[in-house]
């Protein structure tokens, strides 16, 4: 049933099938009237299974992917809309296969983290995981027991959107998946979020929609400037194409560099800017980053995990998929600006982190800072720099979910995240303190963990190109260390605040997600080749297209 031709489609649509199953379950309950609790449990299991199958398919795709070839693999395509040469075209190269695996893994982690299962009674009471324990102000109801079927549907839809975005190789299909992610995200933050959820949700929605409509215009512009390419069945019905593989070829040939000007500006530059803003909002790049802290602080833990782990990677992925291969000349032109914004991200966000008192906000801003490394590495356009950038996407995709899970652990117990109000937590929750230390050190780039490898590669790669920027960024690593260590100091060390004396340590629902991620962070720290070996051939191809021969 699952073959090399359709494994990516299965990975994309298993969650959607799960969604359909949940809808059927809901309809069944409407007619048969079994208990709400039963429906909740069924919906949870369905979500977990569907996401697990999708994860399984992404692992399968990773196994079937042949890293020795640099081209696109595991392709499936057929004609979708004839009039515009729109195809259903999915496939992966080294760049996207790493993101596909990450999406499968982190989504599954998010599902596990959405279950109220595997916890002790004391913990469950503390976290508010009681079915009808309505808001008494003291123990607000936990998101994992609120409107469960709807929550699972939204999370599954989100997973389909994310997976689809990473496997789509048709611009139109890409855009559809890209937009499909917006709706579930809005509802996940808006319904299951914290106190200022409405504000955070609409802010996220508006920011990303502005970005994506600009992207839409650029996509149409690129379409009109492209030459025709044959469809899946060999026919050619329109004079242009949405096929990203073909477009990349045409981009290398300079088709878009010679396109007619827009409003007096070169087309490729305008298209670059429009696409770049759309993607930069997702990264999020300074000055478009302000939605991120709000969204993170209000989102429930698993949604933060997905947001930081996967959604932020859409931005750099899009830039590497669209801007770099399609518009190489404009990419050269904009390189130093991108690098500048990367440095601003790194330094500015690091300083902002220092000033945070909310643990989750600190982690959110640290994401902004770390994504700056990806921007810097990308803009250097050296093989090492781009490898580092993509590896940074992957390693940040492992570490930041850990960090948000950690913030969730303490929030579930204390119902606040003020670093200053904790103290000496290491005495009460030693296991938690240990795993937090691991995650913090991985994030600040301690050698032996994946964060170090990515930052090192980025800095080495950008050093010959942007000397000044690299030095500034490297010094910012010290600030990173400072805010993490200071946070540990304030929250975990010192005298134990007696309020937290009886707090239960990690329960299995937390161990199940934290330990595997921690293990991956360490393994990749010692053996980064596992990922680098797969992504490098594709990136070498990308870089060779950028450098004038």
């Amino acid at each position, binding site marked *: 049933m699952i073959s090399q031709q359709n494994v990516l489609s299965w990975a994309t649509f298993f969650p959607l099938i799960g969604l359909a199953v949940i809808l059927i379950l809901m309809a069944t309950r409407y007619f048969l009237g079994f208990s709400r609790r039963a429906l909740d449990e069924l919906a949870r299991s369905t979500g977990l299974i569907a996401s697990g199958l999708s994860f399984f398919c992404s692992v399968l795709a990773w196994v079937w992917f042949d890293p020795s070839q640099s081209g696109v693999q595991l392709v499936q395509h057929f004609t979708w*809309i*004839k*009039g*515009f040469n729109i195809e259903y075209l999915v496939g992966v190269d080294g760049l996207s296969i790493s993101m596909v695996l990450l999406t499968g893994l982190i989504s599954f982690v998010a599902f596990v983290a959405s279950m109220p299962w595997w916890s002790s009674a004391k913990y469950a009471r503390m976290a508010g995981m009681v079915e009808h324990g309505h808001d008494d102000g003291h123990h607000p109801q936990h998101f994992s027991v609120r409107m469960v079927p*709807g929550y699972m549907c939204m999370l599954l839809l989100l997973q389909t959107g994310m997976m689809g975005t990473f496997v789509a190789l048709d611009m139109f299909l890409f*855009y*559809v998946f890209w*937009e*499909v992610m*917006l*709706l579930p995200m*809005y*509802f996940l933050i*808006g*319904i299951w979020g914290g106190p200022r*959820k*409405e504000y955070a*949700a*609409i802010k996220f*929605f*508006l920011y990303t*929609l*502005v970005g994506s*409509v*600009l992207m*839409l*215009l650029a996509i*149409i*512009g690129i*379409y*009109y400037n492209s030459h025709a390419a044959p469809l899946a069945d060999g026919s050619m019905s329109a004079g242009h194409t949405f096929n990203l593989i073909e477009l990349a070829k045409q981009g290398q040939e300079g088709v878009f560099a010679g*396109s*007619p*000007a*827009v*409003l*007096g500006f070169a087309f490729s530059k305008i298209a670059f800017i429009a696409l770049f803003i759309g993607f930069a909002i997702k990264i999020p790049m300074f000055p478009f980053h302000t939605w991120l802290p709000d969204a993170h602080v209000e989102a429930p833990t698993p949604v933060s995990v997905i947001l930081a782990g996967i959604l932020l990677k859409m931005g750099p992925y899009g830039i590497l998929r669209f801007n770099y291969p399609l518009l190489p000349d404009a990419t050269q032109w904009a390189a130093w600006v991108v690098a500048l914004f990367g440095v601003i991200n790194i330094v500015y966000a690091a300083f902002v982190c220092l000033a945070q008192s909310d643990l989750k906000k600190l982690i959110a801003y640290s994401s902004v800072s770390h994504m700056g490394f990806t921007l810097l590495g990308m803009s250097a356009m050296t093989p090492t720099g781009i490898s580092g950038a993509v590896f940074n996407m992957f390693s940040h995709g492992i570490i930041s979910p850990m960090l948000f899970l950690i913030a969730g652990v303490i929030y579930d117990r204390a119902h606040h995240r003020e670093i200053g109000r904790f103290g000496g937590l290491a005495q009460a929750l030693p296991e938690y303190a240990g795993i937090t230390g691991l995650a913090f050190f991985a994030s600040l780039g301690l050698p032996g963990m994946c964060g170090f490898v990515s930052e090192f590669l980025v800095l080495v790669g950008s050093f010959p190109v942007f000397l000044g920027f690299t030095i500034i960024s490297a010094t910012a690593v010290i600030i990173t260390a400072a805010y993490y260590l200071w946070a540990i100091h304030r929250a975990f060390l010192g005298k134990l605040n007696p309020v937290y004396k009886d707090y239960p340590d990690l329960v299995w629902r937390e161990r199940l997600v934290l330990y595997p991620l921690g293990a991956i962070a360490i393994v990749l720290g010692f053996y980064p080749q596992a990922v680098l070996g797969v992504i490098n051939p594709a990136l070498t191809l990308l870089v060779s297209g950028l450098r004038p021969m």
Partner: protein
Amino acid sequence: MTITQFNIASASWFRPELALTAGILLLFLLDVLVRKQSRYRVAVLTVAALACVGVAAALLAFQPVESRAMFNGMIASDPFATFWKWLFLGAAALTVLIAARSDEFPSPRIGVFYALLLSVVLGMFLMATSLDLLMLYLAIEMVSLPSYAIAGYKPGDRRAAEASLKYVIYGGVASGIMLFGLSYIYGLVGSTNLTALGVRLESLAAPASAGGQLGLRVALMVAVIFVLCGIGYKIAAVPWHMWCPDVYEGAPTPFVAFLSVGPKAAGFALAVRVFYSFLASGGGPEGFARGLADVPWPAVVGVLSAVTMTLGNLSALHQNNLKRLLAYSSISHAGYALMGLAAASQLGVQSVMIYMLVYLVMNLGAFLAVIAIAQATGSETIADCNGLSRRHPLLAVTFAVFLFSLTGLPPLAGFVGKWYLFVAVLSHYAGDGGAWYVTLAVIAALNTAISLYYYVRIIRAMFIEAPAGELVVRPRVSYQIMLGTFSAALLLFGVWWNPLIEWTQASLTFLTRG
């Protein structure tokens, strides 16, 4: 290639309109003769009448493969008109179904409402087909006059009376101005026939470089702007939109639902025909930026479009009444659809057709949801939607689908409509007037983001806010079925819209100039 049909022979091509007329007369008769009728019987009868029209139209549907001028060049019969007739018929049939279970009509007199509604539809049929200035004016009036009556079709309701009065006054002024403009055109050319007008006007209003007279050009410009006024009023484009929110708020909601899609679509059908018959000079619909009297009419329409969508969206931001909000939203959608007209190409016309088709479903759906909410709560404000997702998930989810589709988010059909408009406008970006088109596209794109804000206000109320009280919301079964069908259709055509392309492509043949 056109074939001119003379009077008697024309009648056989006029079957849909004849069937409609018979239905209208029958309804009036029933209303007088049958004393103890329940409104449902009339509804059934009307549906039957509409079905007759459907059959008649179906007879025609595969026949006009080419354009015909009928009744001595008064009316066209072409695939283009047939497309719009189907669309109007769909809007009318759905409105009849919605009205059948509405609370807003005094029960025994529903027959009159149906008869008036069908009269509007007859007018719309004529609007989509008229080839003559006089016919065109009569058709518009045929749509307007029954509409005035229906807008006030709630005896004793002051808001409805106010709506009706406002509608009459604005409508009267607009149609008066239009008639004035038509008289100018007749004075200049000496003919009222659209197919002849284009050619003659072009030679009359030659640009100064070609030895034209300034006076003539000015007169023509004034005339065209006056004519645009009448059309703009029908589609509720800025600055002729002021009637829209008040009428929408006051008039019976099932009629408002119809008003927001039917006459607007008819206005666009008419606009396309007028536009290509004499404003779009240069022979064919494809490829021009400069038009009659040296005025870039596509740019004028483009400016109208930009202003309309922006003003509509900005005004909608802070509306708390759902019907007023949807009124402003419908103004902004007129602005979007005008983009297709401004694109002035085959693709542009096709995009208008697709957009109106999709808009019909999503806007009717949105109004249907408002009706269902108002039936439960007794009023129609955003606050009435609070916690709707917990009271009636189906209603909340389908309403959300309509709103997201109106925003233009994939994978819903609203995105397809908007996609075509953008594609049509941007296809000109490198050509003559490219800067205009790019600017227009950017404005429309930003408007999309603005519109999201107010649509999401409703969604937020439904899904995030807590329910205000223990109110039972149970929409009528027929409404539930329609809500489900509409959203399924939007989803289906958002993912697979080849049929829409094929149908509109086949309907692009139409009569413009002789």
